[in-house]
């Protein structure tokens, strides 16, 4: 191809070229906050293993404004993850044929959202 002197455009900043790419990066970025939350939970478990005093310190952190603020950001990330996860789930699902019709994508997406709501409610009820 060098004989034709073709021009290869650089990929730098590719995500700024189309808002669809920024949405993708936002989706991928949820993983950072999801990981952060897992670390918070591990800290909690470690504190729990360390006895009542260390666990109370973790609970005290949870009550702090810093923690509440952090959780709001993490909550946004977690919810966005849930929404986008089930939105793309149909792409990885082999077609399920029932009789003559195959299961539409919307059923998979809706099913996922429904499951998320049910599981969330169950957790909230059990935890309360």
């Amino acid at each position, binding site marked *: 191809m060098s004989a034709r002197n073709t021009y290869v455009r650089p990929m730098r900043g590719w995500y700024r070229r189309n808002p669809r790419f920024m949405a993708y990066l936002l989706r991928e970025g949820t993983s950072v906050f999801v990981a952060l939350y897992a670390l918070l939970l591990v800290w909690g478990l470690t504190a729990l293993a360390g006895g009542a005093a260390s666990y109370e310190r973790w609970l005290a952190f949870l009550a702090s404004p810093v923690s509440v603020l952090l959780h709001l950001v993490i909550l946004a990330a977690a919810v966005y993850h849930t929404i986008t996860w089930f939105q793309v789930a149909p792409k990885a699902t082999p077609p399920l044929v029932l009789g003559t019709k195959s299961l539409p994508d919307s059923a998979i997406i809706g099913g996922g959202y429904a499951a998320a709501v049910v599981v*969330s409610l169950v957790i909230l009820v059990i935890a309360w």
Partner: protein
Amino acid sequence: MSKRSHEPIFWSLFGAGGVVAALVLPALVLITGLAWPLGLMSDGALGYERMSSVAGSLLGGLVLFGVIALTFWHAAHRIFHSLHDFGVHRGLGVWKMVCYGAAFVGTLWTAGALVAIAI
């Protein structure tokens, strides 16, 4: 013949972790982040006694391990691949070790903490 990739291993963990995180995290974040600090939960809901018995039980321990460990593997996979999106191409082998290594350490630590609680 092109080399077969080992991605299926990490992708399976990523997928499992993604489903678990999608279903379970919003409620958990609501609990630890808002419901409990704002006093909306019953007394001792997150207290030492209750949490010790939950985390120390076989079912509770397995559930917590599953949620936390799979979340680590999910995030590690996504973060690793996002590096590529941001133009990190060189030294990808090192980054792979760092990301999945961190998930592995997190998994072991979680298991260790839960065993310590159970004992």
